[in-house]
């Protein structure tokens, strides 16, 4: 059968058997700092400051002082050029051994999850025994870039050999060259912001304003309840006076959310549904996850919460409008589940990153659409439904905020803790699915299973 999409192998014709790695990579735990709204509590904190703080909290929680970790990987989406060794610098400023090797990674909003996947694979292969994955982003302390004209002049000046040459180059300078370029989230190939892209997808899948506001409300309620129950006591270390995510509105309501004016897709007129309440705000924050082989964790009497089972990345052609910018996970999840012989019914928890409420709802709608699943995923019928009572049960990005590269670590640590607790309570293995969409039409998804 030929389809106009990305085929999903049927479980029985999988190219590979379910991955049987030589050994497991387990999640020991995590630590993040509370997320702050851009321009808020961390307005004067750099990426390096925040990542170091998140690392030091993790080190303190698990007694990793002076430990030489196999490898640390983290990254930031909005990154100063001077921070080419951001993670290494953070490790050198932390209580870890200075002999800990490090790499930086950048994969837009999937950065955090990709560091988990990459390091877990290294552990499974036996290349390393322990790892710390992480991510950080500051929308407040973002790099400001000079104009192309000014950059050109500065570089030419640098190459000039004589005073007349320099004066001649300087004479090219025009007032407009002095205006700095603020960082933006516009896609380079379309010129549309992420929100405008999602507005197109939202309209395509006819996601209602009410459904989006309800998802946002649940995110705030779930996150507030998680804080009240002490869920974050061993997942978070306060920073700069913040003890909870600053974006959390425990007292928000459908009425309040309904009163907000649309900010994206306004050219759709009455069809504009995306507001500041059902979209994530620009956020500052950092997160870390401690990964290990069973032996390494056992030797140090560390807890083992969940294993990183498998992961899949996908990308979509949003440039030509074939798919929505943030819809890559729609393709990644069916491929991943097919490889693992699993269905959506086999999961106890779903963590679908709430870039926008409509992103989550569009993803779910696509999986429930028979036509889409047949023609674009190459399945026999609808991929399936996600049990809403298992979705983002302790809140997600709409409430917590979304410091781009830090979101993966936030989700993985929280999910690992939830899986461990549920497996403990019910005496059976428990599975969770993580899905993170990213700029550039990309997405990374992963399966965690309780240990």
């Amino acid at each position, binding site marked *: 059968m030929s389809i106009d999409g990305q085929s999903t192998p049927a479980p029985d014709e999988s190219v590979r058997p379910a991955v049987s790695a030589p050994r497991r990579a387990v999640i020991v735990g995590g630590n993040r700092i509370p997320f702050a709204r851009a321009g808020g509590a961390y307005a004067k904190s750099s990426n390096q400051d925040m990542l170091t*703080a998140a690392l*030091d*909290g993790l*080190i*303190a*929680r*698990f*007694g990793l*002082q*002076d430990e030489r970790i196999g490898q640390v990987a983290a990254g930031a989406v909005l990154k100063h050029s001077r921070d080419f060794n951001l993670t290494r610098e953070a490790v050198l400023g932390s*209580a870890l051994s200075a002999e800990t090797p490090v790499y930086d990674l950048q994969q837009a909003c999937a950065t955090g999850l990709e560091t988990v996947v990459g390091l877990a694979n290294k552990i499974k292969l036996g290349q390393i025994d322990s790892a710390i994955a992480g991510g950080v982003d500051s929308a407040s302390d973002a790099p400001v870039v000079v104009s192309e004209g000014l950059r050109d002049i500065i570089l030419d000046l640098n190459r000039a050999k004589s005073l007349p040459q320099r004066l001649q180059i300087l004479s090219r300078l025009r007032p407009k060259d002095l205006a700095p370029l603020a960082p933006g989230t516009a896609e380079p190939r379309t010129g549309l912001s992420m929100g405008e892209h999602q507005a197109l997808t939202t309209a395509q899948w006819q996601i209602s304003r009410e459904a989006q506001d309800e998802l946002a409300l649940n995110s705030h309620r779930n996150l507030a309840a998680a804080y009240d129950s*002490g869920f*974050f*006591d*061993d997942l*978070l*270390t*306060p*920073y700069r006076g913040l*003890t909870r995510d600053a974006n959390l509105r425990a007292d928000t309501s459908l009425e309040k959310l309904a009163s907000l004016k649309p900010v994206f897709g306004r050219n759709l007129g009455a069809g504009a549904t995306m507001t500041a309440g059902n979209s994530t705000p620009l956020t500052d924050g950092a997160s870390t996850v401690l990964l290990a082989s069973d032996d390494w964790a056992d030797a140090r*009497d*560390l*807890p083992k919460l969940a294993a990183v089972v498998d992961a899949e990345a996908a990308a979509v052609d949003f440039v030509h409008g074939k798919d929505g910018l943030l819809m890559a996970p729609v393709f990644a999840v069916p491929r991943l589940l097919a490889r693992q012989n699993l269905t959506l019914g086999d999961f106890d928890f779903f963590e679908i990153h709430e870039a926008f409420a409509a992103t989550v709802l569009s993803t779910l709608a696509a999986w429930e659409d028979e036509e889409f699943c047949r023609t674009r995923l190459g399945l026999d019928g609808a991929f399936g439904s996600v049990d809403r009572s298992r979705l983002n049960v302790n809140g997600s990005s709409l409430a917590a905020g979304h410091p781009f590269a830090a979101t993966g670590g936030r989700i993985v640590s929280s999910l690992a803790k939830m899986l461990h607790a549920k497996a403990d309570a019910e005496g059976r293995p428990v599975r969770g699915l993580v899905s993170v969409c990213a700029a550039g039409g990309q997405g990374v998804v992963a399966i965690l299973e309780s240990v």
Partner: protein
Amino acid sequence: MTDTYTRLVNSGAGRNLARKLGLPQPAVLRRYQPGQPLVVGPVVVVGNSPAADSLATELLSWDLDVRRHAVPAEKLGAIILVLDELEHPADLEQPVLSAAGSLRDLRAGGRVITVSRPAAGVSSPAAAAARQGVDGFLRSLAKELRAGATANGVLLSDGTTTTSPSALGAIRFFLSSRSAFVDGQFLTVSSPDGALPANTDRPLEGKVAVVTGAARGIGAQIARTLHRDGAMLVLVDIPAAGDQLAAVANEVRGTALQLDISGADAGARILEHAAQRHGRLDIVVHNAGITRDKLLANMDHSRWNSVININIAAQLRINEALLAADHFRSSPRIVSVASTSGIAGNRGQTNYAASKAGVMGMVRATAPLLAASGGTINAVAPGFIETEMTARIPFAVREVARRLNSLQQGGLPADVAETIAFLASDAAGGINGEVLRVCGQNLVGA
């Protein structure tokens, strides 16, 4: 750090000025550093009993310069009066006056220690009078000593002698600079349990200790001191103080456990953490505490309740979990932080004083429950300690408060921590249900 006034009157010009004006002249106290000599100068052991002889022999094995008679005009490090055979108040004269002749030869920061029997429980009125007499004698002498010298007493219950491990442990503690701010106090050795450490510089080697309220102040210092003495640490504080807690944990190579000790499952979570990471738990220091000062007339529900809840109810609940736990059975130690406010009372602190007096009551009643597993529970009662909290007291009040003790200065968090470290050690295994004040012999209270 020594306060500004104390630094001033210990400098050349300041010293002369203070002397001429008759101002208090607090001494810069000698404080403990690993490896420093236990006592600087000879130690005179006064007393003719066999227990005095055996103590002197034991002290010789500590490489001390032990004398049975003082040589006039020779500077002394310490005078130990062994008074274990007093039968009548008249028996005090000979040893006391013999020590009196040496007092002027006591070095700055010198030590006087009495070793006697407790008055309680003895049937002879004359013996009881003599034993009780030591109490008044020692407390008065402590007030006469100058230049950072202190006087403290060890009380030997029936079944213990001068060479019982905890008698030696207490004598060693009082001799050392670890007890710099303990003055005019008695410590009762109630059993021959306990053991002297193999390495006196690391008496807590290999022990697993929990310290609550460890994010700052006295708690953070307790963590540093226990770490220095060799313990592995689990540091507890409320989640909101997690960043400071993490910094302390990383400094002392311990683990940070963010939890509210007033939660119903706090004891279970502490035990679970210690069991998972270390397989056991040896020492619990109940340091976490809060103040919510108000005159009783203005006291409200939340001020009263939060203080009682955190300062004493939480300790009771956690102790219940500890006493029931399999991982807390091998000579366990609990040390609680009480307060001199709980002894003498303090205006505006009815809630705080009730909670801290409650700690002392709890310690006495819990002692027999722990004794069954070779364990002990004791409290320290700090007086005026230089912390962030006391730094917020208005200047004049603070300046008066810190001079109102025999050492004429505030204590340091390290002084409280050293006392806790001693009570948590094997050497204190025969000391149970005691409240030891770390107050420089504060003039208010007992």
